[in-house]
């Protein structure tokens, strides 16, 4: 089962405070452990939202807004995609994650939809379309 593990932002991360050398080393070790267990798909840290934009969708209209964005605690400062056996397993790995922030913070674990979850809305043809697209992206 795939999970997205979201490191939620804090005031510091949004202010652009960079991780310390110790934290970078600890995270490197943690990632090494995840890779050794064969569960690490991908991941990375996000620059503060002041570097980002939002594109708002309203019918056919698209409006671009520059960051930073409010509601800091809802923002994401980093993420992984893991392939683990269960939510419980993901929780255990998150417990072992070095504390990513100096202030109190959250890590959120969200299961990804698997193809089976879409039911009949996903026809076999559309399913192949999705799978082929991701497979070719991976092989590139």
């Amino acid at each position, binding site marked *: 089962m795939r999970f997205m593990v979201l490191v939620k932002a804090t005031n510091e991360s949004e202010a652009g405070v960079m991780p310390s050398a110790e934290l970078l080393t600890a995270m490197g070790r943690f990632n090494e*452990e*995840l890779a*050794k*267990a*064969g*569960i690490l798909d991908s991941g990375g840290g996000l620059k503060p939202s002041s570097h980002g934009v939002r594109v708002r969708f309203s019918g056919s209209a698209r409006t671009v807004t520059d960051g930073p964005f409010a509601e800091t605690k809802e923002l994401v400062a980093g993420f992984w995609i893991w*392939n*683990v*056996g*269960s939510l*419980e*397993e993901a*929780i*255990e*790995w998150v*417990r*072992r994650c070095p504390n990513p922030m100096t202030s109190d913070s959250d890590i959120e674990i969200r299961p990804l939809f698997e193809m089976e979850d879409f039911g009949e809305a996903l026809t076999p043809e559309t399913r192949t379309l999705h799978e082929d697209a991701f497979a070719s992206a991976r092989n590139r």
Partner: protein
Amino acid sequence: MSRESVASLEAVYRRDGRRIFATLVRLLGSFERAEEAEHDAFIAAAEQWPRDGVPANPVAWLVSVGRFKAIDRLRRDARFTSIDEDAETIEKIPDPSPRHDEQETIEDDRLRLIFTCCHPSLSEEARIALTLREVCGLATEEIASAFLTTPSTLAQRIVRAKAKIRDARIPYEVPEPDQFAPRLESVLRVIYLVFNEGYSASSGELALRLDLAAEAIRLGWLLVRLCPAAEVRGLLALMLLHHGRRRARTDAAGDLVPLEEQDRTLWDARELGIGRAMALDALRTSGHGAYALQAAIVAVHSEAATAAETDWAQIAGLYDRLLQCEPSPVVALNRAVAIAMRDGPEAGLAQIEPMLNQAPLATYHLMHAAHADLCRRAGRIADARASYARALDLARQEPERRFLRRRLAELRA
């Protein structure tokens, strides 16, 4: 019935059926009444959800309907039996109206159910049967076939256990702090026995038998979620670390492959990874004991890319601590083997030989097999042969017997 409500009813049953049952046992004070009430609640849901839609909180809905159905049933029965007694029972059924700590109470109900099913005043067999039936929700037939017994024998065992819970008034509760540790030990023991029952079955049998090892691991995860004590995580880590090597443990013919000869590429990196991580965590947490130490030992084994790279010094050190914590002859034997690997076969033999003819290990086949192995490595071939033959006399499991015969044949060659 609409497809969505069937699908969601099935999903609720699979995911939450046991939680609902656990809560109903608390509310109704009886396993039988809870079972009937849960059944009635799901029948009601199958009728009403397609018509009225899936309720916002399906679990609370099912608990509440189950409770009402139980009260109805008691009222109906009261017409035929002593009215007073049943009226009293009805009065005592608490109202599960949502409280701020509802989630916590429901989670506690599962823990209550586990502690009740593993109560030390029940026999070990009864604890295992009851846990698999009531906590895991397995069918009596499934459990019976897993333990190679008849469904009627097993059903009787469960009925007797439930009667004992009722008659001895075993409370449906999480034990108080002063009782918690020994009671938790009983729970962990039940889970580990289930795991070992599944794990020791040879692969041929396993195909026909329920996967008890996987069931025990599921129980372990549940318990870690409900009660993350060091030994709970230690036990789960231990099971994951064993389970992660299952594909390498027997060869195509179903024969046991000893650790040093296992094809390590067949090990499950994911299970071993999380098992190692949890073993380390458990070892760093206060209150850890024999399970965490055993898990740490297996974790060290699992870290070596080849048998030759095994860190025997660390393993021997962990066995020292395990022997202090659990001074059993089997641990002493394993410690001796680790010492032999660290310091050479003679050092191991010096540990083992005083134990050879002492009860209870004198009749333990693995003791003689280990002795034989060390003699073989030390070049004492005649002693090795004698001990392999003794081990063969004592071993009961066919794969182990085949392994010992093979070793004997190698020494003759």
